[in-house]
Structure formats: C-alpha cells, structure tokens
C-alpha cells in the first residue's frame, strides 16, 4: 500500500475563513458610497487626488517594505486603504502632490517605520494628514491649490459656519444628505454624512467594527454640545465626526480591544473634539482628538484589563445563593 501524503499540522484544523485582506476589502467597500459622492460633487479634483493617493500608497508600501527587507504585503489592502482615507480627509482643492506626500508619510513613517501593520501606534492616514498640517507652514507648495478650479459653489463648510456664527446655516437635512463644501478646509468625506453612514452600516453588519467607539464619540459630542447650548445635531453631522468615528477611531491596530476600553476611548475622543471645537480654532479637531487618544491606548488596555477566568473575583453573596439553589 502506497503511503498517502497526509497533511500534518497542529490543531485547530478548522479556520473561520476571515482574513486581513477580506477585512480590509470590506472597509474599501464601505468607503465606496462617500468616494462616489465625492467624485460626483468634486469631479476631476477628487478623482485625481484619490488616484494619486492610491498610487503613492502602493509605491510607499513597496519601497519601505523592500528597504526593511520584509515581504511586500500589498495584497492585504491595508496600505491602499490608508491612501484612500488620506485622499478623503483632505479638501478637494488640495494639490495631488500634497495628498501623495501625506500618504507616503502615513504608510512609510507612521506605519512601516513604526514596525508595520499591527505595531503602529497612530492611525496612519490621520498621522500623514496631521504631519502635512504642521510642515505646510514652512513648505508653502503643500498649500497650493489644485490646478483645476473647483466646480460648484464656493462657500464655507457648515462646521466653519457653526463656529463663526451669524451665518445662515443650510438645513440639517441638506447637511446630512450632502452639500458640496467649498474650498474652506472641508474634507472630501465631509460632503455627505449620509454616504459615510451607509458605509458604516456595512461595516457593522459585516462585524468589522462594533458600535462601542462610534456611539461613544457621537453621543459624547451630542451631549456636551447640547449642554454648551449649541445645536448638537449640526455638530455631529459636520466636520469629520462621522468619518472619524466610524472609519478612523475604529482602526483595529490603534484602538482598544475590549468593549470597556472602546467606550472609554470613544468618550475621551468625544470630549476632546468638543474642547477643540469650542475653545480652539476649529480645524483638525477630530484628527487631533483621535491621534491624541491613540497614544493612550496601551494605558487604557492596562487599566481595563479583565481578570482571567481562572482568577475569579470573590463570589458575591447573590452568586453564592444562586449556586446553592
């Protein structure tokens, strides 16, 4: 009898089938609605920036992984995802080279040089974005507008209007469904909170994210702005809150792992966002808040660590009674 070539590997012998590329593809799919709306409203500008960011992400991934002599993991989609997110957080008027440089910084510096996917402490897309925010003061070419003029109405974003006060706000329904923001610091993804929410629903259904972080952020912003006497609905639907809450703060690598930790993380981000909005110049509040809390994730993990099943807490009298009955 010929001996069959049997496979012998350690248990478990079954796998759930869910893998990193499938998960990242899910996020891509979830970003499609807002990407399509952005391209619809901003046309060529949006398209050029998105393509530039994707190409930059792929190049950065290949170059940095080769330099670090690690296998190139383009197939896991994580670098491309960073690229798309970077494109979406910049205003559509941003020059394509600025978006590309932000992507390279995000993928190369914030992710790969920090140890690669899994080890980076900060959200790569937001990291790249914020580095541009800081260095653009000395590198004016980063602030140059896209060569092609923006189509559509040029006007302040609803968030800017909220903060300046005295302006006539567009109807809430318009804000939610989508209005083309002008060339004042509005991100492409701010164009339609509804489109972001459609994608978020997909992520929740696919169980890529849980509700804890986004709900904690949004509820905190809602309650605090209500207490501060502002219109909470305008606050939660303007600026980068929806994209930040559902797509940035929920990044696996840079957020806490347990439900308790997620809630603390979300509430803290919400508090920071409101502080930024009410007390400081109203730009980049969401990005800063998330990045600041990214830094605290290891401490949140430590503080919320649950005891092992084998380390049971002393039984309460109620439990003892239940055990006896």
């Amino acid at each position, binding site marked *: *009898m*010929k*001996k*069959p*070539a*049997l*496979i*012998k*590997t*350690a*248990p*478990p*012998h*079954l*796998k*759930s089938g*869910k*893998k*990193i590329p*499938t*998960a990242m593809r899910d996020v891509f799919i979830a970003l499609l609605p807002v990407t399509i709306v952005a391209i619809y409203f901003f046309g060529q500008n949006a398209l050029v920036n998105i393509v530039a960011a994707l190409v930059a992400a792929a190049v950065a991934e290949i170059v940095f992984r080769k330099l670090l002599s690690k296998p190139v*993991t383009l197939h*896991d989609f994580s670098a491309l995802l960073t690229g798309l997110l970077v494109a979406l957080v910049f205003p559509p008027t941003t020059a394509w080279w600025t978006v590309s440089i932000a992507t390279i910084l995000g993928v190369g510096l914030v992710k790969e040089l920090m*140890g*690669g*996917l*899994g*080890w980076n402490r900060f959200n790569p897309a937001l990291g790249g974005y914020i580095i541009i925010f800081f260095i653009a003061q000395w590198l004016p070419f980063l602030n140059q507008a896209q060569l092609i003029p923006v189509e559509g109405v040029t006007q302040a974003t609803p968030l800017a209007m909220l903060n300046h006060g005295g302006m006539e706000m567009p109807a809430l329904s318009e804000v939610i469904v989508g209005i083309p923001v002008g060339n004042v610091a509005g991100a492409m993804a701010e164009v339609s909170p509804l489109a972001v929410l459609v994608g978020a629903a997909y992520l929740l259904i696919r169980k890529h994210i849980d509700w804890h972080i986004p709900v904690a952020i949004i509820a905190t912003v809602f309650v605090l702005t209500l207490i501060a006497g502002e219109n909470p609905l305008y606050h939660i639907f303007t600026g980068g809150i929806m994209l930040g809450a559902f797509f940035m703060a929920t990044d*696996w*690598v840079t*957020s806490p*792992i*347990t439900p308790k930790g997620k809630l603390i993380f979300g509430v803290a981000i919400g508090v920071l966002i409101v502080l930024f909005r009410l007390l400081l110049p109203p730009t980049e509040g969401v990005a800063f808040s998330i990045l600041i809390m990214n830094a605290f994730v290891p401490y949140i993990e430590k503080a919320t*660590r*649950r*005891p*092992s*099943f*084998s*380390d*049971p807490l002393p*039984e309460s009298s109620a*439990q003892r009674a*239940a*055990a006896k009955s």
Partner: protein
Amino acid sequence: MEVRTFEGGAHIPHYKSYTESKAITVMEAPDEVIIPMVQHGGAPCAPLVKSGDKVEVGQKVGESEEYVSAPVHASVGGIVKAVEPRPYYDGSEVESVVIETDQNNIEFKPQVERNPEEMDVEELKEAIKEAGLVGMGGAAFPTFVNINQSQPIDTLLVNGAECEPFLTCDHRQMAEQTQQLVTGARIIMRTIGASKCYIGIEVNKPDAIEAVKKTIGNDNSIEVVPLAVKYPQGFKSHLIKAITGRNVPRGARSAELGCIVRNVGTTIAAYEAVVHGKPLIERVVTVSGPKVSEPGNYLIKIGTPIGYALQKCGVNLDQLDNHKVVVGGPMTGLAQDNLEVPLIKSNTGLLVLPPEMIEKESRYEDCVRCGECVSKCPIWLYPNMISTYAEAMMLEEAKEWNIEDCIECGICAFSCVANRPIVELIQRAKIEIKKLERKKA
C-alpha cells in the same frame, strides 16, 4: 427551557449533519489489533502477556502498580503476535500488545449480571478500576482515581455537551443507550456520595434531551440541563461554571469544588463495568468528513488501526493525498500521518478533512488587534498579547498575561484573521516555561 452557558466562546460551524442521525453500528473487528500500554493520563502499564500467548476477549493484558493508571485489556480473542513499540496517535511510539484476531472469538460474553443496588461502594469502585475506565471525552484521566475521593462531593456532572464540530458519538449514545447512561450516572453518584446529578446537553441534540428526560422520569436527584450551542461548552471548567455557577479558580481540582465531571461514554462504560463486568475494550467513534462515503457512529474495538476503520467507512486510502486525517475533534484533535496508529479509549472521532477545508497558507502576519480572539477566549485571556510574547519567547510577559491558564481550545487560532498559529505558539512557550521551572526547582 432555561438554557445555560458561560461568558465568552463562540458559535462555530457544526458539520454534525453527516452523522447525527446515524444509529450506532458495530464495525467488524480488524485482523490485528494494537493495544498500547498507555491509554490514559498516568503511569504506563507493564504488559502481562508475551508473544505467542493466547488471549481471550476482555483479558487484562497490561497493568501498573502505580495509583494513577488504568489497566488495559484485549479487545479481541486471539494470539499475541508481538509486544513492541508501535506508533501512537500523538506521534510518539508506545509499547503495545499486538493481537492477531481470532474472528470466531471477538464477542465479549458477560460472566456476571450484577444489580448495582445490591453492591456496596467499594465493590462499585473496584469494578470500575478493574475495567480500566478512563475519561472517554479526550482527557483520558483514570476514572477510578477521579471517583476515589476522600472529600465530600455533592454533585456529579455528566458531560453531554459535545461541543466539537463533527462529533456525534455522545449524542447517539445518549439517544440510544439512555437506560445505561442514567443507571451509570446513579452508579457514579453512589461511588462519590453525590446527592445530585446534572446531565448537561447542548440544545442542538433535542432527541437526546427528550430521551434522557423521559428515562429519568420523576427521579429528582438527576436533572437534564440544556446548554447553549457554543464552543468550548464541553470543557470541564466551563461545564462546571455553566451548570453549577461555581467559579473554577486556577489549579483547583473539580473535587475541591464539590463536583466531578464524567463524559457520557465513560458513564455508560461504568454501567457496563459494574453490571456486566465488561472492561473498556470498545467504544463509539464518530467517523466523518464531507467525502467519507459511509460516515457514522461506529462501535469500534480498541486497538483498531485508523486506516482499517477508514476503509470500512468507504474511504479509499490511496486517494488521501493532501487530506488531513484527524483523531479526535477538529478543534483539539491531532492530525495523523501514519494510518497504522490504533484508536484508543479516549478517541472520540476519526475525521477526514479534504484539501478545500485545510488552511494551505502557513505564513502568518503580525497581530492586527482585530479583537476576535479576545472577545471569544473562554478563559477571558488576551491571546493577542500572549501569542505575541510567546512568539518572541518573552516568557515572563507571557506568564504575566496568564499564558498558563490557557486551555488550548483553539478558538483564537480558528478566528485569527492574521492566520497566527496562536495555540502552537502558546504550547511552545508553555513547554519552555515548564523547563525553566524544573531548572529552578
């Protein structure tokens, strides 16, 4: 119907439909059986026979003087062909008695018909010890040692959860051998002095729940507890927690918690041992897999080579290239590369997994902290942290994150999106930790 469970764990695909409605059938005895001298946790037996000896069905062929051990018996009558090391399902070789089967002498004929009610506790224990009973759910701890407790035990838990995918041998035994199960439970209750017995059964076996309930009738000392269908519901610690609500602290033996857990097969074997004086020489094994043409629950002689058992179920051994043959369940069972390995007392299943069910990619990534393992770990550990430390052999850190509490149920590795072999990494680190501790001692 109140369904009980524990916190953590997860629902995983069952694959039980291949065999869950297949009645137990007797598999023909092979022409040669291999009886390993170790089929239990504890000291190995010394062979009592030598090459050329004639043996009867049920004759004791191996025994140990040690307390923690269990004797082994000939599962068929015939001639001892050899006493030599033979391949064992864990990959090692174990001293074994090889018997050439006399096909006219394979049936165990009970010499006695005892009424357990008329036997005293010592007689019951002796019968269980002599029969070589061990935990038949996989742990294989000698049953006599388990029930011979000096401290008072109030509760017997009969484990009918059968939470591993594919396996249905306990299910069928509960449905078909209900009377033996309930009588067996009463026997074990007497040996440990328990006043209460809970039979925990996952609710995906409604026929078993019904049958057992009916047989218990209005005996209030025995109760069926429906359990949620969730892996790893059938692990001892989690069965205790789910049914009694008692915590299972690190290092505590179940007897210290006032309960003893016995598997369905073991409980029925206790009945056979006490009533018929029958040693543990055959057991019900689920032979299954998507491409096994005659999957089923077979009563198989201990010592039957797995290749023979597979052939009897219609598996063409020449077409097993790139397949996996697993002894036990798919979550914790062991893959085999030698089909001469014999089935032993604790083997619940024999599975053939076709290439499309097998993970081909051996490369894995760093943890991306998706949280699947943390939300599913039944011990509430952080397999993400532990496996990362284990991989780097940072043993102090791994210990600090309670690596030693891990029960290796496999649900973390099953769920890992980064394809990390979490259980393997943990096992390797645990071995190193034990080595270090021995050095210190």
